[in-house]
């Protein structure tokens, strides 16, 4: 006769060290097995969309930074792409290249946090320290460019707030050979560690069809083995001029689409980002970065949906303009918002301890989920 256990509801969060912020998960348990997960979000709902309606277009940028605070540069990139599409302006080539360099540096920084905290969630504290040490290097690059460490307000509509610092190109070139061996170091420390692999391989498998139906994008989708990257499939900015691979999950440690695959795609993506930065630095044209900034941003009546490949996936901005200086409506399609909704599907049938492994592997940022 099989042993019957009672069903139990367990609350995880909103204060929990490994929920990556203020997220509450309501776990429906049967013994140790998870029968269902109900995420409760909104603990960081900062009313971005209401603010955007009250601000002028350039004033929205500081708020855009605070959505996904781990990849502020890329959020700005997405927002200005949308507004420029609405305005119909062309930006100088140099601006595009600098945006790409900044975006890719931001991608590395963001993935470093994702990897570091993922290690810390699963009990390996050293990778966290290593990741933050390298991230600090990238932040210092941003700091000399625009003066801020985390929230930049650097990419403006039609241009950039500052030109590159005279030292930037040299320091960025120094960063690439510095960082390459660190990826290998991270692999030695964490990726191939048997304990880590045991915790992550064959856990939280996300089949590609489910992923598409749920709208999951970015590294989480590529971890499921689907070669889908907006930088390649729907190119924006100058991404069509670079040569890079799109890493996908191959199921090297278990099944395709498990936590380890999602994690490892991020490691491989850092390598690709380095390649892009290298090429962009080589091709960096001269020019003025502030020449195309409009004096007064007043788009015509209309609407636009523009999307970019954020470190977390497809970041879309839906902007409606009523012809005034304030946006009528800004809706953010946040990649983490969608990734989190798949938690229930991923966790079912696993153990409680796996919830943390799964949550860490989809790499959410609550600021973006709650907006």
């Amino acid at each position, binding site marked *: 006769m099989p042993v019957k256990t009672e069903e139990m509801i367990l609350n995880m969060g909103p204060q929990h060290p490994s929920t990556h912020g203020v997220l509450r998960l309501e776990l429906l348990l049967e013994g140790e097995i998870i029968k269902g997960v109900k995420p409760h*979000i*909104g603990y960081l*709902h900062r*009313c971005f*969309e*209401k603010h955007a309606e009250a601000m002028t277009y350039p004033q929205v940028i500081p708020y855009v930074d605070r959505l996904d605070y781990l990849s502020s540069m890329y959020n700005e990139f997405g927002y200005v792409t949308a507004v420029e*599409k*609405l305005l*119909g302006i062309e930006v100088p080539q140099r601006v595009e290249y600098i945006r790409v360099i900044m975006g890719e540096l931001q991608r590395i920084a963001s993935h470093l946090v994702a990897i570091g905290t993922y290690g810390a969630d699963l009990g390996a504290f050293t990778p966290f320290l290593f990741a933050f040490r390298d991230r600090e290097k990238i932040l210092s690059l941003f700091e000399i460019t625009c003066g801020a460490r985390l929230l930049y307000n650097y990419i403006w509509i039609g241009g950039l707030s500052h030109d590159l610092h005279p030292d930037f190109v040299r320091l960025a070139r120094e960063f690439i050979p510095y960082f390459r061996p660190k990826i290998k170091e991270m692999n030695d420390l964490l990726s191939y560690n048997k304990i880590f692999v045991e915790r992550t391989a064959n856990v939280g498998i996300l089949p590609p069809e489910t992923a*598409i*139906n*749920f*709208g*999951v994008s970015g590294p989480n989708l590529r971890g499921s083995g689907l070669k*889908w990257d907006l930088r390649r*499939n*729907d190119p924006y900015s100058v991404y069509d001029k670079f040569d890079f691979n799109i890493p996908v999950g191959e199921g090297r440690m278990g099944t395709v689409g498990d936590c380890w695959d999602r994690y490892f795609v991020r490691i491989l993506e850092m390598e690709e980002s380095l390649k892009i930065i290298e090429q962009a630095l080589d091709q960096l044209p001269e020019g003025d970065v502030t020449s195309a900034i409009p004096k007064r941003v007043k*788009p*015509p*009546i*209309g*609407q*636009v*949906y523009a*999307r970019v490949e954020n470190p977390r996936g*497809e970041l*879309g901005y*839906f902007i*409606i303009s009523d012809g005034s200086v304030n946006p*009528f*409506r800004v*809706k953010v*399609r946040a990649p983490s*918002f*969608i990734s989190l*909704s*798949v938690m229930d599907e991923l966790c079912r049938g696993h153990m409680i301890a796996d919830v943390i492994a799964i949550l860490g592997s989809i790499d959410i940022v609550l600021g973006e989920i*709650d*907006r």
Partner: protein
Amino acid sequence: MKTTEEIFNLLKEKFGESIIEFKTGVPVEDFIVVNPFEIDKVCTFLRDTDSYQFNNLMNLSGVDDANGKKITGEQGEVKLEGRTFSLFYHLESMSLKQKVTLAVRMPGENPEVSSVSEIWRSADWHEREAFDMFGIKFLNHPDLRRILMPYDWEAGYPLRKDYKNPEFYQGMKVPY
């Protein structure tokens, strides 16, 4: 790859009255306006037909059109008459690389629309958010609760243009 206009004509043939109009001329994006109670059928068709294959719902956003006429009642209460809410559906076919935007218009008093969360699971949370922010009701939605605001928030739907913030929430002063 089909343009929005071609898709509109084909849909018009298939669904007739449910496809209301084709909006073009607005900068950047064209869209098709669909009857709110038929949107689920149109979407199922768009997803499952081989020549469309819209397998990805990129975005679903509610909009307060802010087009109502202000009418002041006897007790001085302000009512908006004739206002509408809209929903925009941005669909994408990852295999055929085509995109289309659908829209629905709902009356302001009782905004109701068929849910598409059965078709794309990603719509589930988007719809909950639209309900939370605008009070748009999605028929046949499996779990229509507030998502971002607290469950006991009574002051209404914050992204409506005529929203007024309450003075206190659970004993905490809300305004600065």
